[in-house]
């Protein structure tokens, strides 16, 4: 078998980033959730919210720590496996990545320590402020990374000099055409991922009749949250899709499974795309529906994959199926929101066993949707690394052989399975343990504060 360093490098990048993205998907939302709990504690002066905040901060600490560890790997990937990408794009993208790192560094050095270990050392308002700063910091990190990512999808604000991208306008680089849509869709997705993880953990406690008062409070507010944010996310996703249709019509054609450019384009519910034959097998479709939701008119013409030669098309099947997984989870989430609101209205939210089981089953939903959505947008960008301008196969490090990358990918796989396995095991154990039963706010001794994220998991116990 011929080992292709380009394909294996893509696989390696997909592997390390798929694991890494799970952590920000959780911590971005959790940081804001902790702000909410801290805020409720400060305003309502109810220790119930304090206990909840301590509980979720412990889990946040483990998740943030694993995010840092897996994040260190990421910037080095650009150099080791994608050196020609680094050479071509760094003048434009380098500062964006560097700002993400600086912001994360700033956070870790400053407010995270106070959030995780400072509860007994600083007044409540200062602790609340630290929580706010950490949450804002996670959003800033998302801002910079998604600005860089969006630029690769819809490059702007640059000029090409000898095959390399040079900055012409930083504002246009950062606020490129797809960035606002991607930022809104991704951050809302992160929030919902956290909300469903929190909802599921809470339902588990209610099902086992533990921490009933705390769990009821959290479940009540989480159901309201998803009832508001699932519809917002569906709208944001739709707008992002329309933006993609405008800038990357081939990606949308792959998402929809449309081969021919046509008016009255059908909405393909299910099919098995066959790239060789350039058609779908086993297709189930509703005529004209795609024209209606993509262009708001049944007679609108939608571009098909055959518009471009096969060498310029993205791989169809992964994009097509990942898109259906993402949308399917979106529909399930909407169902959970409507069901939850209805149960709450009927006063049965906290006791309905079936809903509790459904919530527990939905814990991974957001994570799966995030990875699926990421697959849609990144695989759909292929065969380009900078859309329309730099091909992925021209971006790889020329010195790498397939065997090199196979070896490194295998080592990453082994190490990640061990490390993430241990981390998830530990987070589940913390989640099962539940909030502390009572909190004792004592004055600590100087020098007692360990300043590492993961150890925050036990600092407030």
């Amino acid at each position, binding site marked *: 078998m011929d080992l292709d360093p380009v394909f294996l490098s893509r696989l390696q990048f997909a592997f390390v980033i798929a694991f890494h993205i799970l952590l920000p998907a959780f911590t971005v939302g959790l940081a804001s959730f902790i702000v909410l709990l801290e805020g409720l504690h400060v305003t309502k002066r109810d220790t119930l919210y304090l206990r909840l905040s301590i509980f979720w901060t412990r889990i946040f600490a483990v998740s943030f720590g694993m995010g840092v560890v897996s994040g260190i790997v990421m910037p080095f990937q650009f150099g080791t496996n994608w*050196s020609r990408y680094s050479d071509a794009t*760094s003048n434009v993208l380098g500062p964006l990545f560097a700002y993400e790192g600086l912001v994360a560094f700033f956070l870790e050095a400053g407010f995270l320590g106070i959030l995780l270990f400072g509860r007994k050392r600083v007044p409540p308002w200062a602790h609340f402020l630290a929580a706010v700063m950490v949450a804002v910091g996670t959003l800033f990190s998302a801002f910079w990374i998604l600005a860089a990512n969006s630029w690769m999808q819809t490059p702007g604000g640059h000029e090409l000099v000898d095959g390399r991208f040079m900055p012409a306008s930083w504002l246009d680089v950062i606020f490129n055409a797809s960035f606002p849509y991607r930022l809104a869709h991704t951050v809302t997705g992160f929030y919902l991922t956290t909300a469903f993880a929190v909802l599921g953990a809470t339902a588990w406690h209610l099902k086992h009749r533990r921490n009933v008062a705390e769990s009821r409070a959290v479940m009540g507010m989480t159901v309201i949250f998803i009832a508001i944010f699932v519809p917002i996310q569906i709208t944001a996703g739709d707008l992002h899709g329309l933006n993609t249709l405008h800038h990357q019509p081939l990606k949308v054609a792959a998402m929809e499974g449309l081969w021919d450019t046509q008016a009255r384009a059908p909405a393909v519910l299910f099919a098995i795309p066959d790239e060789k034959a350039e058609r779908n097998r086993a297709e189930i479709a509703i005529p004209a529906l795609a024209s209606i939701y993509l262009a708001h008119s049944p007679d609108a013409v939608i571009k098909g994959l055959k518009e471009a030669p096969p060498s310029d098309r993205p791989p169809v099947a992964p994009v097509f199926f990942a898109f259906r997984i993402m949308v399917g989870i979106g529909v399930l989430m909407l169902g959970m929101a409507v069901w939850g609101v209805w149960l709450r209205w009927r006063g049965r939210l906290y006791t309905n066993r079936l809903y509790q089981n459904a919530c527990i089953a939905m814990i991974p939903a957001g994570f799966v949707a995030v990875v699926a959505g990421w697959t849609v947008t990144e695989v759909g960008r292929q065969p380009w690394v900078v859309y329309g301008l730099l091909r992925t196969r021209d971006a790889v490090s020329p*010195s790498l052989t397939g065997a090199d990358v196979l070896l490194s990918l295998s080592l990453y796989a082994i190490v990640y399975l061990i490390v993430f396995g241990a981390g998830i095991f530990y987070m589940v154990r913390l989640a099962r343990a539940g909030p502390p039963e009572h909190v004792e706010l004592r004055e600590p001794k100087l020098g007692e504060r360990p300043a590492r994220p993961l150890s925050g998991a036990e600092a407030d116990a």
Partner: protein
Amino acid sequence: MPPLDLVPVWTIILGVSVFMYVLLDGFDLGIGILFPMARDDDARTLMMTSVAPVWDGNETWLVLGGLGLLAIFPLAFAIIMPAVYFPLLLMLLGLIFRGVAFEFRLKETAHRHWWDRAFFFGSTIATFAQGVVLGMFVQGFEVTGRSFSGTSFDWIRPFPLATGVGLLFGYTLLGATWVVMKTEGDLQAWARGRATIALYGVLAFIAMVSVWTPLLHEEIARRWFSLPNLLYFAIVPVITGVIAWGTWHGLRRDSDYVPFIGAMGLFAMCYLGLAISLFPYVVPYTHTLWQAAAAPSTQTFLLVGTLFLLPIIFMYIGWSYYVFRGKVTAHDGYH
């Protein structure tokens, strides 16, 4: 007016970042290397506790250095990273294991021996890999056009492997003198012994590399040994010798702080010596700092935020080391 040349500013910022990483994570990693030699479990716990509050922040300097290189010297990043493909992979995986072992060792008493091993191997592999990268840097890279054109196994050569072993001694010296500074009694006495052995190793490697490097590259030999340079640069080995003597003396004379300060001084002199040998190359021996630098607009854009955030980061770090000053005892740490 031509744009202001920011390359010297950035060279200093990134040079300091990398040096901060080497010093700070150096003693963390050194403790990991010393781990299995410690007498008992309590000694190991105490050693770990002494760096527990700071290791995580120490590691972040590496990210800053890496991202800075990517943004400011992209061509250097694009050439060097593929050249050090496997050493870098080993370093990253080693650091992951080291970091996770730090946390789980103190929580999972049932599997403690397992995490002890992960901590030792993670630290040792990461250190050796960093030493190999250093050696490859001095050895130089095979470059065609704007890309590395050697193989991913160019690191398996005598010089990089030797510097890999040399750095093991170096970080062990930093780690052992750190333990001397942070502990008392039996553990401190034991660390003094280890530090002395490590010091001999470090001095042997400094001598070896000082002879080997000019033999590798005529240009470096000319820089050090031609007149009048020889007169100026002769001060470097003289100061190194004085610091080495001071460190050795401090280890014998029961001084708590002198050995660690001396160890840091030795690292500073080696770093200076390296800078003298390699300047102005950022990709030895094909691209200078200026040739590999990003567009002035890129440098300016990143400098604005960096100059704002870096002083705050320094202040915090100073404060954090101040809070955790003094000796660690069995009562410190995790509860």
